[in-house]
């Protein structure tokens, strides 16, 4: 079939940050199929140079408000390793709880507010307020509770306040945690089941498209790895997080202010679907039931199913949050002061699973505790090459459709990755010259 096609979606909507989809086909030959990243660079490198370790996480979390908690926790882990700061078990538990809250919030926001309008063929969530009021109210209730975890533990859901190097500046009161638990049990759990039911009715709207892909995520022996673990590739297996540069191999492309990545193949996938594929054996029963009900299977190679994997993950995070709160209450909350006395000054790496995939921060500090080098590699940046590869395979497969339909498929594809463009652009990799 010979066809000419010019698709140019400027400032794609319902994604975080600014990107354009550009597809050119001349007489049946695909000349271009790519996600152009036009987010203005912000030059975080320049902001970090010579900054105190107290400020590193405050600044890097401003790379992205959507992923601020993920950046913050990853940054703290890198700083703590570089400076030899220790954290208590309570700190780890509270951080894991925060990550669960942020993951639920982000996944629910994506499923209901950004992806669902595509399934229901409307332009945004706002028409749904009158057409599906109960669904919108449910989505808001779930998001609020997820954000309340962030507010109670982190002081604020966006750009949390309390997590600092070595611990927390404020410890939540037992009553606040008990109330969160009550709502997780009484509200969130039934809301998740209802979400699964709603999604089941929309399953037919999810495009069928598969492309054999390398999936990279954290993996841990103890749990469904989000806070820490080894780096795991579905192609090549596990390595330590210090090997992250070998796993990412950043390179610059002209159509993107964000750098791209590759590992064992031309591209790889990070995010909820990668975590599902690599770690489904670590999920709790409720999550596995949800996956079963929604037809998500191990080894799934359909990127559109990432949204489903996010909902499955939200179920896991809910159940695990309840477990963590129980454990915290049983141990009794201690008014600990953060450990901020460095025992060494060197380089440290942090790797964390944030909603959009695996996130790396690496810092080097001088003897005054000031940053001399920093590197952050962001999930969306790692996915960009994979998105381009998907588009190159997808476009020829759907050429019989109208231009509007093709455009809509492509938009949905990019949205399925839940890309965080502003994050991907504001990565860091620099050795400061003093």
């Amino acid at each position, binding site marked *: 079939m010979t066809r000419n096609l010019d698709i140019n979606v400027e*400032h794609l*909507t*319902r*994604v*975080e*940050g*600014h990107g354009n989809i550009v597809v050119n086909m001349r007489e049946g030959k695909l000349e271009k199929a790519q996600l152009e990243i036009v*987010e*203005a*660079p*912000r*030059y975080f*490198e*320049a*902001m970090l140079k*010579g*900054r*105190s370790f107290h*400020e590193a996480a*405050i*600044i890097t979390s*401003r*790379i*992205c*408000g*959507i992923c*601020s908690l993920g950046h913050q926790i990853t940054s703290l882990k890198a700083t703590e390793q570089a400076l030899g700061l220790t954290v208590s078990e309570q700190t780890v538990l509270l951080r894991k709880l925060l990550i669960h809250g942020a993951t639920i919030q982000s996944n629910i*926001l994506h499923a209901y*507010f*950004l992806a669902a*309008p595509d399934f229901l063929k409307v*332009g*945004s*969530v*706002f028409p749904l*307020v009158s057409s599906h009021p109960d669904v*919108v*109210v449910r989505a*808001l*209730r779930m*998001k*609020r509770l997820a*954000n309340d975890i962030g507010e109670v533990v982190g*002081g*604020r*859901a*966006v*750009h949390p*306040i*309390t997590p*600092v190097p070595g611990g*927390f*500046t*404020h410890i939540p009161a037992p009553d606040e945690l008990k109330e969160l638990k009550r709502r997780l049990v009484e509200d969130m759990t039934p809301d998740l089941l209802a979400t699964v039911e709603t999604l089941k009715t929309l399953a037919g709207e999810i495009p069928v498209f598969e492309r054999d892909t390398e999936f990279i995520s954290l993996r841990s022996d103890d749990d469904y790895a989000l806070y820490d673990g080894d780096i795991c590739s579905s192609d090549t297996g596990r390595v330590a997080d210090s090997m992250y540069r070998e796993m990412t191999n950043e390179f*610059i492309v*002209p159509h993107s*202010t964000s750098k791209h990545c590759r590992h064992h193949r031309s591209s790889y996938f990070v995010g909820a679907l990668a975590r599902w594929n690599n770690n489904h054996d670590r999920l709790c029963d409720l999550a596995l039931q949800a996956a079963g009900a929604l037809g998500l299977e191990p080894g799934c190679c359909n990127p559109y199913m990432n949204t489903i994997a996010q909902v499955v993950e939200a179920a896991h995070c809910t159940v695990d949050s309840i477990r963590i709160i129980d454990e915290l209450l049983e141990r009794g909350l201690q008014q600990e002061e953060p450990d901020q006395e460095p025992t060494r000054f060197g380089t440290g790496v942090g790797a964390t699973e944030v909603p959009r995939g695996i996130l790396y921060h690496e810092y080097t500090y001088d003897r005054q505790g000031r940053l001399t080098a920093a590197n952050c590699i962001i999930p969306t940046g790692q996915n960009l090459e994979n998105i381009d590869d998907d588009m190159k395979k997808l476009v020829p497969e759907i050429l019989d459709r109208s231009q509007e339909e093709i455009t809509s498929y492509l938009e949905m594809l990019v949205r399925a990755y839940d890309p965080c463009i*502003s994050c991907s652009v*504001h990565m860091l990799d*620099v050795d400061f010259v003093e």
Partner: protein
Amino acid sequence: MAAKPRVAFFDFTGCEGCELNQLNFENQLLDMLEHVDIVEWREAMDDRPGEYDIAFVEGSLSTPDCIKRINDIRRRAKVLVAVGACAVQGGINGMKNTRPIEEVREEVYGKDKYLFPTLPALPLSAVVKVDVNVRGCPMTQLEFLKVFTALVMGKQPVEPNSAVCVECKLKENECVYEKGMICLGPVTRGGCDAHCPSFGQYCTGCRGLVPEPNLKAMEEILVKHGLSVNEAWKRLHLYNSHELEGLKS
């Protein structure tokens, strides 16, 4: 009551945390939708129409294209609200302005730096008239609600000008200085209900400097509490580089 105000949301260079914070009004969102028609919001919807009564704009201006877009938004909006530290005072992005822009670009993109044009990060007010500020990083939700209700009522919102210390003392928070930390609360505009000190953290100055700040005295305070002069100014610059660079010249 007259027709509902038409409201639009826009984002420039920033982290979009302010926009996310607007989506985080789960308890108020439905009430808010009663009072306005949201006509444009790229992060949440795909409709793209023309005129609006109120434009909420996040992010600072850092490319030639930004300047064009903000002028266009200003032309189409009756009331322009700058939302968050980046839009109001340049915010964290402004830190890059303290170094030569070419040096910064080269550091990040090396020989490929010419692929990506950039300007010093500017607050909206450096280019267009801003009618209302909602400050903070991320924007203070409390203040956003106040501004929102004021605009719906057709009145100019009141901008808080007193230092964070006032709100902190009203809440009887343990003073951050008492804990041996430093804090920018004494010269930072309140209106956040001293949110960070209420959670044990120091004020990083995200809501901008108070009017007519006594910076020499603030430097002395920071130095007295253990920072070097250099470090003191670095802390002050975090969110306020644009204003401080302006005061210098």
